[in-house]
């Protein structure tokens, strides 16, 4: 079969490469080059916007944390536990202290500046998650297992404790899927799937059994 371009034979039928007729500027090759160029531009712009968006989010979070640190420790705890309903064990885990220590702060005990800053940080993040309008009850969302196949037990709180705050916001804004985020922050997360599951037992309590696929 002979392939022609503009009435001229092409490929083997046309002989060597130099036998090709020069393409006019409106040809598909020029179109392809233009598309290559535009896509590169868009990719670069996309990366730039993504970086800029990340920076803007970080600055926003930093400003909010600064505002929150103006509150007293007991005020921050009232916000987190009393208003948000966050569990004392989660608050303790976020700050890296015992529940007893947090309970003492609640009653007026002294907390270190570092602990106060950690309380301000989680309070600021919960505000962001709520204001984005996607997470109605951000403290509850942090505690829920992420929607993955059975056998995975990963909470947003776990990602927060590992320092992936911006990825968490990505997740809340549904810019990336849970799997995409986990692939980036926990590359081996799939290997952590358990053969067991938790279920509500006949006595009304939770029990553990082997997962039935």
């Amino acid at each position, binding site marked *: 079969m002979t392939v022609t371009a503009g009435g001229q034979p092409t490929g083997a039928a046309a002989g060597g490469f130099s036998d090709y007729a020069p393409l006019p500027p409106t040809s598909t090759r020029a179109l392809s080059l233009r598309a290559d160029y535009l896509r590169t531009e868009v990719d670069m712009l996309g990366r730039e916007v993504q970086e800029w968006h990340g920076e803007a989010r970080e600055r926003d979070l930093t400003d909010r944390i600064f505002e929150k640190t103006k509150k007293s420790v007991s005020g921050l705890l009232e916000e987190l536990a009393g208003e948000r309903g966050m*569990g004392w064990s989660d608050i303790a885990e976020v700050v890296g202290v015992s529940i007893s220590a947090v309970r003492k702060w609640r009653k007026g005990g002294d907390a270190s500046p570092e602990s106060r800053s950690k309380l301000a940080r989680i309070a600021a993040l919960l505000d962001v998650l709520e204001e984005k309008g996607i997470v109605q009850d951000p403290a509850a969302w942090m505690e829920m297992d992420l929607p993955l196949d059975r056998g995975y037990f990963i909470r947003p709180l776990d990602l927060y404790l590992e320092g992936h705050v911006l990825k968490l916001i990505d997740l809340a804004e549904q810019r990336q899927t849970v799997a995409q985020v986990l692939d980036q922050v926990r590359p081996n997360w799939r290997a952590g799937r358990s053969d*067991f599951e938790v279920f509500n037992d006949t006595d009304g309590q939770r029990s553990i059994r082997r997962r039935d696929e």
Partner: protein
Amino acid sequence: MDQIESESLYDERGNVNWARPLLQGDVFDGIVLPGFGDQPMKVQIISHPCTMRMGANLTLRITVAPVEPHSSVVGQRGWDGNLRVMPLPGLIDEKHFATKFIDVTAAPAVLLTRPRRIATLSHQGIYILQQRLIKHYTRVEMPLELLRRQSAAVLTEAVLQWEWIEEVLTEAELADESAIEAEAKAFDTWLGEGDPSCRALLQNEIHHTDVHRRALRAARDRSRTRKDQK
């Protein structure tokens, strides 16, 4: 098998908050165990939080295991090389102890009083204890995440009770075991009220924040009412 630093293993050592309900992992001193001679000893509660209570009351007997000095329960080798014990590094004055699973027995609940409680475990510490108990009895190794999920409702209930008691009782009452027990019953009654009750709602993590807010409101209302009545 997982291991944990002593700073993260304990919730408290020494002076333990009386408002915290008795839980798996609590360590007591001065307990004379039936069948273990006349000498008072240290014991750790082994019973799962789900099985040590009937309503608000403790069961008559609670599963415990003796706690003894143990020099080699620190570091990777200490945790991995002693699967028949629960390491309790730095339990008292930086001295190391361990709970001997092989001597598990039942202690009368009346002996396990708040003044005798010398340490409590963090939630993470409780999961580690559970993991080691399962391993000891079955040779099955459970991931901590799974144990966390299984225990979430009952441990959340325990922390809510602790908060309730501290909100409602005065400082003087917080040093009175009978006042604490009475308030624990009041919390238990509140938790079981309504349909669905807050206790039922705790079976799903999505409701935990809501139940926490409701519990705190109810405790503060109760505290105000008590003050008005005095």
